[in-house]
């Protein structure tokens, strides 16, 4: 049942650009949504499953984005190795940041992640020699065509890149699923629910937090690399504080601790402001009001709300 639904969703996503031909704007939105899902998956593992809030996570996405941009632009690396290296570097930075910060407790940790995000985005804006400063790094080349047994798949077109983004997103979703059902994932869930108890049962809480922080930063880095190569520019605005806070909102709106939470959250976050276009100037105001209502009435995100309604329906 679940497998069939998943398959159907993947097939729909893959055929989306074919079903709506000649709608470049829709395709652009769809690709942007995918680019938003990947870092949200990283944060979902950290926040939704482990219970650690990071308010600076797009900073790690930026590390991945800039690293991949430099590798593709300056060193002429192909897309995938550049994306992988960006993710690894972001994970390594996450590890370095995590070692001191994860020893702090609750609210202190949250504010420190905010500070880390701000420091990273200040560096992106001001290290002109490395990051191109406020302009960023433009002119990232499109992925080269893929040749599988004589079939040449062009990835440089909007549709081609949509499929690239979809493949990366599916990879991240697969990784999320594998982590969640692994013993590592159960230990993370135990840490979220009761840290003292997890430790008494033999979980090295700090080591687990550090591992998931690095993993989560790495996935965010892959997301940053994907986004930079889609927009063909790594720019500070993509990775600033506002982007980090939005990422938290994406995860929370979708439903933290649900596998599909990042997908739903990202769709809502990209699509809703678009749908509110009719409201023109007032749309961000309305969007803000929607966020407040969600916070009040869907405390575990849209998926949590849906599950609750389903259960109530089944009970009656």
């Amino acid at each position, binding site marked *: 049942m679940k497998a069939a639904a998943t398959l159907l969703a993947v097939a729909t996503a893959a055929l989306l650009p074919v079903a709506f031909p000649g709608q470049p704007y829709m395709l652009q939105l769809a690709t942007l949504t995918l680019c938003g899902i990947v870092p949200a998956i990283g944060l979902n593992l950290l926040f939704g499953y482990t219970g650690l809030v990071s308010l600076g996570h797009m900073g790690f996405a930026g590390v991945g984005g800039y690293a991949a941009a430099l590798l593709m632009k300056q060193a002429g690396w192909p897309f995938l190795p550049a994306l992988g290296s960006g993710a690894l570097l972001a994970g390594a930075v996450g590890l370095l940041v995590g070692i001191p910060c994860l020893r702090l407790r609750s609210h202190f940790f949250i504010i420190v992640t905010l500070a880390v995000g701000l420091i990273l985005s*200040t560096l992106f804006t001001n290290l002109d020699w490395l990051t191109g400063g406020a302009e960023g790094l433009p002119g990232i080349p499109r992925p080269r065509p893929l040749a599988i047994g004589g079939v040449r798949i062009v990835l440089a077109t909007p549709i081609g890149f949509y499929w690239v983004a979809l493949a990366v997103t599916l990879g991240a979703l697969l990784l999320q699923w594998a982590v969640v059902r692994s013993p590592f994932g159960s230990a993370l869930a135990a840490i979220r629910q009761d840290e003292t108890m997890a430790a008494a049962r033999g979980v090295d809480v700090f080591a687990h937090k550090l591992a998931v922080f690095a993993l989560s930063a790495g996935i965010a880095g892959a997301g940053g690399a994907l986004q930079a190569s889609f927009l063909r520019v790594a720019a500070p605005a993509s990775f600033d504080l506002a982007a980090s806070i939005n990422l938290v*909102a994406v995860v929370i709106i979708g439903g933290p601790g649900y596998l599909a939470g990042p997908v739903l959250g990202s769709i809502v976050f990209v699509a809703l402001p678009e749908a509110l276009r009719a409201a023109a100037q007032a749309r961000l105001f309305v969007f*803000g009001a929607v966020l407040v209502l969600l916070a009040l009435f869907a405390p575990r995100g849209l998926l949590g709300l849906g599950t609750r309604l389903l259960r109530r329906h089944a009970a009656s």
Partner: protein
Amino acid sequence: MAFPAMAFPAMAVIAQAVNGIMMGAVYALFAVGMVLVFGVMRVLNFAHGAVFMAGGYLCWFAMAHVSPIYPVALLFSTAGGAAIGLVLERLVFRRLRENLSMQIVASLGLILMAQNGVLLLFGADALQIEAPSLRRVLRLGELGFTVQHLVILAAVAVAVASLHVFLSRSRLGIAMRAASQDIQAARVVGIAPDRVFAITFALSGALAALGGALLGPLFLVFPGMGDLPLLKGLTAIVLGGMGSVWGAVLGGLAIGLLEAEATLFAPTDYRDLVVFAALIATLLLRPRGLFGTAIRGEP
């Protein structure tokens, strides 16, 4: 000496100290409001910056349409901030006391509403509060500062001192302090927790709006004017240990001084980076902040 004395003329250090203490006083005012709400309700109100911004707009509106007398405008903004605080508590944060992540989402929503709301009402251009007398420059030897520098210091001093008297002498204030230890403790003083929450938020909103109204005449009034004070205010309450009013005051002043003096040895663009790096360094040495003690509910 790490820095040659030549590069640090004493006058420059003192001039930056004057600016730093002025900004630090504004941060302190901002942080005190946040830490009150956090202490009593365990709510981190990220929309505190939006109330600060609203204070700036209220002050501009009062000067332009109600009365051109600045102290009247200050009172108008402060009262308006208290009203905003009451509404926020009643409609939003009272229901979110147990849910940190939804406090973040609600705050984000409120910030969007506030910033785009003023955009719709007042337009995208930054507003200038017409108060030339406040911007008059005073000279003390080589040192120059505006009248508003003194107004800010005096207003913050009065506000913090009154708050201190309120918290230590009045029945409501004592109930608030009791509630920050244990919410049921407020009942002992004979005050319902809901009333404590409402008063706390009203006070916090008043302090934030007062901050915006104080900074408005020096800088411009615009939708994003609360963003930096929010970040500095958060840093201040963490430095101060996330539990004490005096910790927040000292944290705010320390940040104001640090960022002002930082411009003497680092490019201006890196000013905020210096502050946040100092925050992280402090927490590495003192994991509960400079004046922090254990937080309720933690081992």
